[in-house]
């Protein structure tokens, strides 16, 4: 424990606070999995766009529907695409923050199994969603910038140059 205390003490405080706030909000939504989640809007958007291509049967949560699983897979695959993209462009903090979206994907799997009364898979997905939230938080800490000044180095230099230009 002593080795862990202060392990990330040199991290950018802004990024740490951001991770904590996102974690808190997402955790509350994940701990109330049948209620509102901000990313639900994204799921509805996906449904509207893909509804033209895939014939979703109504209602969605039938016990034996393939189209519902296709819809679920689309929601789950979106954070995976983002994760790969952020890693590719070197945005490691954003890639870590995508884990909060992975948690939402697991929450959707929970909702699917809960609606179709498969209790054990639903429980596994609920625990997985909580686990992904924690992983997201810790990865955000790990991948935060080391020095707060490092992230805004260019801006600071620019500001310093401006000051020099202004002063006689």
């Amino acid at each position, binding site marked *: 424990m*002593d080795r*862990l*205390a*202060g*392990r*990330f*003490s*040199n*991290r950018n*405080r802004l990024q*740490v606070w951001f*991770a*904590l706030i996102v*974690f*808190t909000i997402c*955790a*509350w939504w994940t*701990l*109330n999995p049948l209620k509102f989640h901000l990313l*639900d809007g994204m799921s*509805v958007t996906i*449904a509207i766009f893909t509804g033209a291509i895939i014939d979703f049967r*109504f*209602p*969605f*949560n*039938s*016990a*034996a529907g393939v189209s519902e699983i296709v819809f679920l897979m689309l929601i789950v695959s979106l954070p995976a695409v983002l994760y790969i993209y952020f890693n590719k462009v070197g945005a490691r903090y954003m890639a870590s923050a995508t884990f909060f979206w992975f948690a939402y994907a697991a929450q959707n799997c929970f*909702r699917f199994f809960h*609606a*179709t*009364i*498969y*209790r054990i898979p639903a429980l596994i997905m609920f625990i997985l969603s*909580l686990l992904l939230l*924690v992983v997201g*938080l810790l990865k955000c*800490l790990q991948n935060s910038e080391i020095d707060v000044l490092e992230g805004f180095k260019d801006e600071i230099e620019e500001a310093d140059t401006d000051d020099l230009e202004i002063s006689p």
Partner: protein
Amino acid sequence: MKTTSAKFISPSLVTLFILVFMLLPVDLWAILGVEATAVTFKILDATKYHAPGMTSLDIEVINSDDYVVSPGRRFNVELVLSPDSGIKIGQTLQADFTGMIDDLGSGRISVSFDPNTVLIIDDNPACVEIPWSIWEPVFDYLPVLKIAFILFWWLVVIQLVSKKGAVTS
């Protein structure tokens, strides 16, 4: 001096509005409402709760002509059962279902049936009595446990980023 009256509020328009507002819930019910008769279903699992006197049943539809309450679909039904209802886990029952699609987006459906109209189709020695919920005492503490989960990770993060324990080079 003659004042202009609001001619657009004609009696026929008012009647039309009243009719629309009366018919709208009926139309909505036609879209969202579910009514299925003589549905045969099996009780997969069930739990009794002390506080609201409710019984939670996990059921699977075996036979039905309805499009929404279709065979193979599973539902959770919460209802008040009388002590002499004789309903057990594993039984096959028949009842008339009513319900509604709660949410058009996700298609979440809630159904219910009148426990007094239930017919027991199949009852065998393998069927078991409905047990009391073992988790019910925890329900009151759920909000506290949720907050505790979040606070625990806040404390972990505060420990991890604290400068007190930091190794200075």
